[in-house]
C-alpha cells in the first residue's frame, strides 16, 4: 500500500519528507514567516514554469526566459520613467507592463513562426534570443538600474495581503489559469496532441503551429509578468536580474514529471517541482550549507528527483 502510494506520488512524498526533516533540522524553517518567504521566492520562477510546462508539453523549449525577465523589467522601468511625469506613475507603470508583455508575446510568436516556416528548432532561436534580450536590456538601461518607480510599487512584489505576500496571489491565479487551460480547453488538449504526435494532430484538423506559437507567446507574457514582479521587488529595472533562470525553470518542469520530448506532463507536477527547488535553496541557506556544497547537493538532488520519476515510470510499465 505504502509502496503503491509512493509509486503514484513520489515527488509529493519526497516533498513531505523534506518538510519534516527541515522542520527539525533547519532553524526557522517551520515558521509561518519562512513559509511565506519560500512562497514569495518561488512565485517568479513558478509563474514562468507554468508557461514553460505548456511549451515543453507541446514539444518545444524556451531558453530565453532568464533574459526575458530582465528585459521586461527594464522596459517597464524605462516606460515608467518616460511617462510618469506626464500621466502619473500608476498609469505609466501599467502601460510599461503592458508594453513588456506585448513585446515578449511578440518574441514568443516570432520564435513560433520561425519554427513553423523554417523548421528552426526553438532550442536555437531562444538560445540566440537569450543573448539578444540580455543585450537589449543593457542597452535600455545603459548598464545602470533604472529607478523610476514610486516606492508604493514595491507592494506588488513584496507587500502582504491578509498575511500572504501579494505575488503569491498572482502565482496562484496563474496556476489556476494554466491548470484550466491544459485540462479543460481545446487549446490545452491540443498542446498534448501536438507534442505527442504532431502529424496526427495536424490530420485531426488541429492548427499545430497556432498551438505551439500560442504556448510560446503565453510563456512570454508570463515571463514579462515575472519581470514586472522582480522590478517591483527591487524597485528598479535591472539588466542583470534573473540570469540563468531558464535552467532553473526547466529543471522545475522536468522534476515535475513533464517529458522533455513533449506530449506528457502536468502543471500540478510543475508546482511540485517549483516547491521542491524552492525548499532546497531555502533549507540549505537556513542550514548554512556552504555555497559550494549547495551547488553539489542541488545538482545531485535534481538528477536524483528526475531519476526517481524515470525509475518508477519504467517499473510501472513492467508491472
Amino acid at each position, binding site marked *: 500500500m505504502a509502496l503503491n502510494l509512493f509509486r503514484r506520488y513520489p515527488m509529493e512524498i519526497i516533498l513531505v519528507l523534506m518538510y519534516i526533516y527541515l522542520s527539525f533540522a533547519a*532553524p*526557522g524553517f517551520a*515558521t509561518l*514567516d*519562512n513559509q511565506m*518567504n519560500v512562497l*514569495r*521566492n518561488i512565485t*517568479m520562477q513558478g509563474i514562468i514554469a507554468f508557461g514553460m510546462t505548456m511549451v515543453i508539453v507541446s514539444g518545444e523549449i524556451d531558453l530565453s526566459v532568464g533574459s526575458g525577465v530582465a528585459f521586461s523589467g527594464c522596459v517597464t522601468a524605462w516606460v515608467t520613467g518616460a511617462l510618469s511625469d506626464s500621466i502619473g506613475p500608476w498609469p505609466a507603470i501599467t502601460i510599461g507592463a503592458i508594453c513588456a508583455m506585448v513585446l515578449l508575446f511578440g518574441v514568443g510568436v516570432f520564435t513560433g513562426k520561425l519554427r513553423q516556416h523554417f523548421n528552426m528548432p526553438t532550442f536555437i532561436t531562444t538560445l540566440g534570443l537569450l543573448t539578444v534580450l540580455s543585450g537589449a536590456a*543593457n542597452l535600455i538601461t*545603459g*548598464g*545602470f*538600474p533604472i*529607478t523610476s518607480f514610486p516606492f508604493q510599487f*514595491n507592494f506588488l512584489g*513584496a507587500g502582504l495581503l491578509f498575511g500572504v505576500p501579494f505575488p503569491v496571489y498572482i502565482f496562484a491565479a496563474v496556476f489556476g489559469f494554466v491548470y484550466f487551460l491544459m485540462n479543460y480547453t481545446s487549446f490545452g488538449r491540443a498542446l498534448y496532441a501536438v507534442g505527442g504526435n504532431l502529424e496526427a494532430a495536424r490530420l485531426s484538423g488541429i492548427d499545430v503551429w497556432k498551438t505551439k506559437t500560442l504556448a510560446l507567446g503565453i510563456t512570454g507574457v508570463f515571463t514579462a509578468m515575472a519581470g514586472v514582479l*522582480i522590478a517591483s*521587488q*527591487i*524597485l*528598479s529595472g*535591472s*539588466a*542583470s*536580474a*534573473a*540570469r540563468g533562470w531558464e535552467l532553473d525553470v526547466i529543471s522545475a518542469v522536468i522534476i515535475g514529471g513533464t517529458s522533455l520530448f513533449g506530449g506528457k506532463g502536468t502543471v500540478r507536477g510543475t508546482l511540485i517541482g517549483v516547491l521542491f527547488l524552492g525548499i532546497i*535553496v*531555502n533549507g540549505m*541557506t*537556513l542550514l*548554512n550549507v*556552504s*555555497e559550494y556544497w549547495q551547488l553539489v547537493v542541488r545538482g545531485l538532488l535534481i538528477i536524483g528527483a528526475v531519476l526517481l520519476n524515470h525509475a518508477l515510470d519504467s517499473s510501472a510499465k513492467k508491472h
Partner: protein
Amino acid sequence: QSDMTIAAVVFQQDQFFRTIQLGMNAAADAAGVELLEGNSNSQPEQEISLIDTYIARGVDAIVISPVSAVASIPALMRARDRGIHIVTYNSNVDDTSIPVSYLNSAQRDLGNSTGMMAAEFIANELGGEANVATLGFRALLPEISADRVDGFVEEAEQGNTLNIVSQQDAWLAENAVQVAGDIITANPDLNIIYAANEGGTVGAVQAVRNAGKEGEIYVFGVDGTEQLVSFILDDDNVLQAVTAQQPYVMGQMAVEAAIAAINGEATEEAVIVPVLGLSRTDRPAVEEFQEYLQSLN
C-alpha cells in the same frame, strides 16, 4: 560563546570575496558568534531571497555587499524594519540611512591609486604620452566598474597625454586573455592596459605574454593576490603596479561593526579601509605584502 547570529552576503565567488569571508570568519570566531554565509551571484532577486531567508531565520545582523545601490534597498529596508542591523561593505546602497556602518576601500581610490603610479610610469618611461586600453566589468557592476576605470584615467592623465584607444568588458581571466589579445592586435601601438579587477588583470598580463609584447605593453591592475604579486616580482616587466584592497581586514572590520551594533555600541557611519599601492618600483614593499598574504593561509 554568545547566541548572536550574523549573516554575511557576498555577491560573487572570487578571490577578493573569499578573502573577505576569511576575515569575517576570523572576527566571528574571535567573538564566538555564528556566521551564515551566502552569495547573491550578482543577481538582485537572488539577494532578496537570501535576505528574506535570513529575516525568517531571525539573524541579528546582516553584513552585505549589495548588488546594486538601488535595487538592493527594498529588501534591506525590510530587514532593518525587523530590527536587523545592516552593515554594508565594498558596495553600498543609495539610502545611507539603512546601514549602521559602511566599510569600503573607496572604489575611486582604487582607480586613483593605480592611476598615480601609472602617471609616474608614463612620465618617466613613455615620455608623457601613452595609448591606453581598459578592461572593465560594466555588464556586471556598472557603477563600481566606472568608478575604478574613471579613477584610473583621472590620475594617470595628470601631466600626461592619454589616448584611450579601446574600452571593453572582461572580468574573468580566460575571457580577458581573449579580449586583451584582440585589443593588442587591433592597436599595434598600444602602451598600456588597465584592468579594473583581478581576473581582468591576470588575463591582460597573459595576453601581453602571448603576444610576445613584453617590454612594449605594460599592464596596470587592481587587487593584490598571490598570483598578481608574483607577476609584479617577475622580471618580464609586464605587470607594473596594482592597488591591493585589504579584503581580509575589511571582512574583519565589517563583522566587528555588526557585533558592535548588536551590542548597542556606537558605530562609525563610514569607514574607509585603506588601499595599498604595490609597484614594481618598490620591490621590498611588494615582498613584504607577499609574506603577509602567505601568513593568511
